[in-house]
């Protein structure tokens, strides 16, 4: 528990400058756009007179200098205020809080599926490196790894929604179904099968490959040789000695991939019309909504940092050497 707090504190302290860089870079990137949110808004309502433009700019603080606005943004961010979305005319924080659960559900399910199945298949492949089973799984995972997730999503929906009619084609739940409790959860699960499958498959292949190559490396280690010399059963060596050591790189890989998975869900949500965080990003882009886009980038950075913190914790639990040396800090 003490180790967890130390790790959390270290992660939090080292994350602050990184987050600051993210915010400043994104701020200047969005500043360099030609035309601001007021231009986009005026375009959408069909124009307005100069006085309206002036008052709109003032109300959004767009009439001040760039640095004044950066400071304003940073100080409101310090109060956990993400600003005001121009396109939706609502607080950015509320919008994100509304959309994030759908994406977390999608990502969480995809992670569980790809991690569980990927490591299991990786163990199957790595149990006997070089065997036919290993080669088939390796080639299969390489093919799956090459399939773009958004295209896979489309193909899955052609096969399973259009042709077979097994699963709904889009959205996160049946609109106005009036379902509650368990039947609503089932409805959502039904809607999530295809998007989760499309998002998970590529990571499943990745985890399989990392697990497999980690195991191939572990077979060469001395303690595995010792376990074999002791006459332990093969399944015990595979699970307790080889796979357990190969799990560590897998956990690291998961931390590294969490950002990519969040990016991947942007496209998957667009394919399956899921009102999530990724769709919100696309809507922010279409509406030239700089404050919203900014809030999305910052939130995703915080999300990835949090995932990496969880990864740290899991890593520390799996490998007792980590975090122990900082115990005196």
């Amino acid at each position, binding site marked *: 528990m003490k180790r967890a707090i130390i790790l959390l504190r270290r992660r939090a302290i080292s994350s602050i400058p990184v987050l600051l860089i993210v915010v400043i870079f994104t701020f200047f990137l969005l500043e360099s756009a030609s035309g601001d949110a007021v231009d986009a808004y005026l375009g959408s309502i069909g124009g307005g007179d100069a006085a309206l433009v002036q008052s709109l700019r003032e109300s959004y603080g767009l009439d001040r200098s760039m640095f004044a606005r950066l400071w304003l943004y940073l100080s409101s961010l310090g109060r956990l205020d993400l600003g005001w979305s121009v396109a939706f005319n609502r607080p950015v924080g509320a919008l994100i809080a509304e959309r994030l659960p759908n994406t977390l559900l999608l990502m969480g399910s995809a992670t569980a599926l790809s991690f569980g199945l990927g490591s299991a298949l990786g163990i199957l492949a790595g149990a006997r490196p070089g065997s036919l089973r290993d080669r088939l799984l390796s080639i299969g995972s*390489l093919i799956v790894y*090459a399939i773009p997730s958004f295209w896979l999503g*489309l193909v899955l929906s052609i096969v399973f929604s259009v042709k077979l009619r097994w699963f709904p084609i889009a959205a996160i739940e049946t609109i106005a179904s009036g379902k509650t409790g368990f039947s609503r959860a089932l409805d959502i699960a039904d809607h999530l099968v295809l998007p989760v499958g499309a998002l998970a498959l590529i990571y499943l292949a990745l985890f399989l490959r990392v697990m497999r*190559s980690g195991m191939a490396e572990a077979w060469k280690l001395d303690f595995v040789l010792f376990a074999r010399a002791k006459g332990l059963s093969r399944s015990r060596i595979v699970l307790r000695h080889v796979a357990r050591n190969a799990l560590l790189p897998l956990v690291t890989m998961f931390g590294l991939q969490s950002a990519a998975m969040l990016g991947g869900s942007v496209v998957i949500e667009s394919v399956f019309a899921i009102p999530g965080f990724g769709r919100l990003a696309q809507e922010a882009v279409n509406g030239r909504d700089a404050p919203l886009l900014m809030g999305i980038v910052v939130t995703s*950075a915080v999300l990835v*940092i949090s995932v990496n913190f969880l990864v740290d914790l899991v890593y520390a639990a799996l490998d007792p050497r980590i975090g122990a040396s900082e115990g005196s800090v």
Partner: protein
Amino acid sequence: MSRLQRLLSQPEGAVGLAILFILVVAGLLAPVISPGDPLRIAGRALLAPFTDPASPLGTDRLGRDVLAGLLYGARTSLAVGLAAAFSAMILGVCVGMVAGFAGGLVDEALMRVVDAFQIVPAFLLALAFVSTIGVSTPVIVLAIALGTWADPARLTRAQVLAIREQDYVASARVIGMHPAEIAFREILPNALPPVLALSATIVAGAILTEAALSFLGLGNPNIATWGSMIAEGRSVLRSASYLSVIPGAALAVTVLGVHLFSEGLGKALGDDGARAA
């Protein structure tokens, strides 16, 4: 055996090289096989594949030739993928070198920037970048490179830090070699190989990102891209699913080719030989 022979003796390497060769030839010969603008109307709309020899793979909703789009799309995919990966490599290696050599505060600051680029989802960054700066091919290349340069930077820095402690670097210093000469003649050539091994993954990722961007309508609208073809086919997914399936399959085969080629290359160069056994 030469390296090429060793590469070809690996099934992965041979298949990967064949796929990439076909793609490059297809991209280069696009104007010969399908002359004219691939985005022009070539015939009746929604012609099914294998029905008309003039459009062997059929036409889309607007009557544009699918084969022409596929061939010119190969150009776009390969060009954008390679250019983005190349820019990412250059930027990453430079930053990694500077951080590794300078050490101290410069290193610390540069690595925090690398961290920042690693925690923002690359695709989200590309989305924000392209939509802000405006859609054009160089911007797309830069946007993809910005999302991918952090990995080579981190690896280069780690390599430099490891190699600068080696004895031969110390002896180069002792014989009075100029620091710049040590950096470029002694350290860089030895630091690069593992970083270059990343390039296949980066090229494959760049090709997929470009496709995803143009799928969401943030690709260059004036050139044929596989991503925009897939998106275009979505509206007639029920009746003419081939319009989305064909370019997507081409995309998957391309990425597979890059991965197979890099697997084969790794095995041929020996550092993966033990794993194959």
